[in-house]
């Protein structure tokens, strides 16, 4: 009994009798998720305000006689005259490892029905990006598991690589492949007991997407056992635009925790076109002046301040960003695509035509570029894939000319044959990333002409057969390639022996 009394006494002691000061205002109008509030004379820009019923809002427009607040919750309960109070806090979200494997909303609240998140730390949603002095150049690789990307458009930890393309060209698939590949690498790395191994944790931010798509994404990650290394921040099409506007910044705050604590994280913003649309909607309702395509003047700053938060920090970790942009009819010169292209360190352009031809992932080699990733590429990939981009460019050029005439010299024919095989080799089924050692082995086999005798239409089968052969029978060789990260004469000799063995079995089967 005395324990109970003590508990109550402690609770009473916690209750200070000192007066608490609050700054208040009253709702004048509420429309489309935005409340215009009278009063709130002490409110700060971007400060969290509290509406009746615990609904949270953010003060976005501080005007002479009213404050424009976006409401991050149910507006149907709010009415004219309701009291609004300041909180003295900037909008913050819970961060930390406790969020791994969870699905949260734009405010970091769990929406997966797995109970509360045991997180004690909070990070502000809006934060100034790391400065010049605290950054370090990008020189560590981040493997996507997609051969066409890892060999020709390599991505480094701390890089911002845009994934751009029309609807239905496989943008989200590339992101999911990358997340799944990180999970696979994490599992192998952590199991190896290597003290220098740095796992990459992933954050997937779904902005304005259909709920069914988000469910499919969660299912795909669960099926690949990648959800345990992933945090999903969902602001779906059903959420109000304020939540859609905040979600990428919340995701960035969650990612920053890993970066600040000496760990590496990958964040996918899927997608920033819908994010810009949500921001345009809020801005128009707040009566901010509109510019090109009715976007507000600060839409560039909206994305630049978000993407600048991805960095590799000196003595700490890194945050790699994969923003996604959806184009209309392949138009990369529209307002938002050009903005984001200019902010990021390169782009992976996906073409509808390639996708329809069955070339998947439909990466357009000519238009895709990685501005800083080559310095992060490991030696083995440079050794086997250094010339691929040039060879493919040459192939495309010659293929265009070859359409007009049938008489081709031997060299041109060889280039065309090699190019056609490279294109086939880069075809990869979705949600099935390849480890870098398997990629290197397959590309080495291609460079050494093992695929030259294989018919173009059989290249995919041959590649799959080689992959299975290497994984099941040459595990030691793959481990050596992974640990050495370079091709030595001894490794090349082993590869040659393995390739000869595979070729014999493949020819016998074929």
């Amino acid at each position, binding site marked *: 009994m005395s324990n109970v009394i003590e508990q109550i006494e402690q*609770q009473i002691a916690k*209750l200070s*009798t*000192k*007066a*608490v*000061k*609050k*700054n*208040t*205002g009253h709702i004048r109008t509420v429309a489309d998720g935005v409340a215009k509030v*009278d*009063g*709130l*004379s*002490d409110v700060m820009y971007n400060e969290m305000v509290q509406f009746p019923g*615990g609904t949270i809002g953010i003060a976005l427009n501080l005007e*002479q*006689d009213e404050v424009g607040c976006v409401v991050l919750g149910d507006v149907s309960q709010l009415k004219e005259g309701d009291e609004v*109070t300041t909180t003295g806090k900037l909008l913050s979200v819970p961060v930390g490892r406790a969020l791994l494997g969870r699905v949260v909303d734009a405010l970091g609240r769990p929406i997966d029905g797995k109970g509360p998140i045991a997180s004690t730390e909070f990070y502000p949603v809006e934060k100034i990006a790391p400065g010049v002095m605290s950054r370090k150049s990008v020189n560590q690789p981040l493997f996507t598991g997609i051969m066409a990307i890892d060999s020709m458009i390599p991505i480094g930890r701390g890089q911002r690589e845009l994934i751009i393309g029309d609807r239905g060209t496989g943008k989200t698939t590339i992101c999911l492949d990358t997340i799944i590949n990180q999970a696979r690498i994490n599992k192998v790395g952590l199991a190896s007991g290597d003290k220098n191994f740095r796992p990459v944790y992933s954050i997937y931010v779904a902005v304005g997407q259909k709920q069914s798509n988000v469910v499919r994404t969660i299912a795909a990650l669960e099926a690949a056992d990648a959800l345990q290394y992933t945090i999903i921040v969902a602001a779906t099409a059903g959420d109000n635009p304020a939540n859609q506007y905040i979600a990428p910044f919340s995701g960035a705050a969650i990612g920053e925790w890993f970066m600040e604590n000496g760990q590496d994280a990958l964040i996918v913003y899927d997608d920033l076109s819908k994010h810009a649309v949500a921001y345009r909607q809020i801005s128009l309702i707040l009566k901010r002046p509109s510019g090109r395509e009715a976007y507000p003047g600060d839409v560039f700053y909206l994305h630049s301040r978000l993407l600048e938060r991805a960095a590799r920090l000196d003595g700490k970790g890194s945050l790699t960003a994969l923003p996604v942009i959806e184009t209309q009819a392949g138009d990369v010169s529209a307002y938002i695509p050009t903005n984001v292209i200019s902010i990021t360190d390169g782009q992976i352009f996906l073409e509808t035509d390639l996708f329809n031809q069955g070339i998947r992932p439909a990466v357009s080699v000519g238009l895709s570029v990685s501005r800083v990733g080559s310095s992060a590429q490991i030696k083995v990939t440079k050794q086997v894939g250094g010339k691929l981009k040039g060879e493919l460019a040459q192939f495309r050029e010659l293929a265009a000319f070859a359409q007009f005439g049938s008489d081709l010299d031997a060299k041109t024919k060889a280039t065309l044959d090699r190019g056609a095989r490279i294109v086939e080799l880069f075809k990869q089924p979705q949600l099935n990333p390849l480890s870098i050692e398997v990629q290197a082995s397959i590309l080495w086999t291609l460079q050494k002409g093992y695929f030259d005798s294989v018919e173009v239409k059989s290249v995919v089968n041959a590649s799959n057969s080689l992959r299975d052969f290497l994984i099941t029978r040459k595990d030691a060789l793959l481990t050596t390639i992974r640990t050495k990260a370079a091709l030595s004469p001894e490794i090349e000799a082993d590869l040659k022996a393995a390739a000869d063995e595979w070729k014999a079995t493949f020819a016998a089967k074929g």
Partner: protein
Amino acid sequence: MAADKKTKLLARQLFKLSLADGQVSAEQISGVLGWVNKHSPRRPLALLQLYQRLITTELARSQAVVTHAGPLGAGMLAQIEKAMTLKYSRPVTATAAPDSSLLAGIRVRVGDDIYESSAASQLASLSA
């Protein structure tokens, strides 16, 4: 009807004219209202509503509404008046408003600011 920019500007000008020595003056207000009657500016309803809001806000800043549950101690209002006058560097007058929903303690409102020291608010913070 929502006030446009010109109406807002005029309302603010009229509000400034309604002050004498930084305080709302009844004489000045009647002068302003007389001017509005005489010149009938555009959107008179929106103008007067805006003007009224500005005056009400200004008056609220000089008034401390002391909501209390139970009896208010003698001299308490005078003490609050003194403290608020000192805090806001302007004359503040206090008025009492009994409210049993506070359960115990007081709540003082000066303009947008609320100083809360009531049992009801502490219980609310416990339940949050």
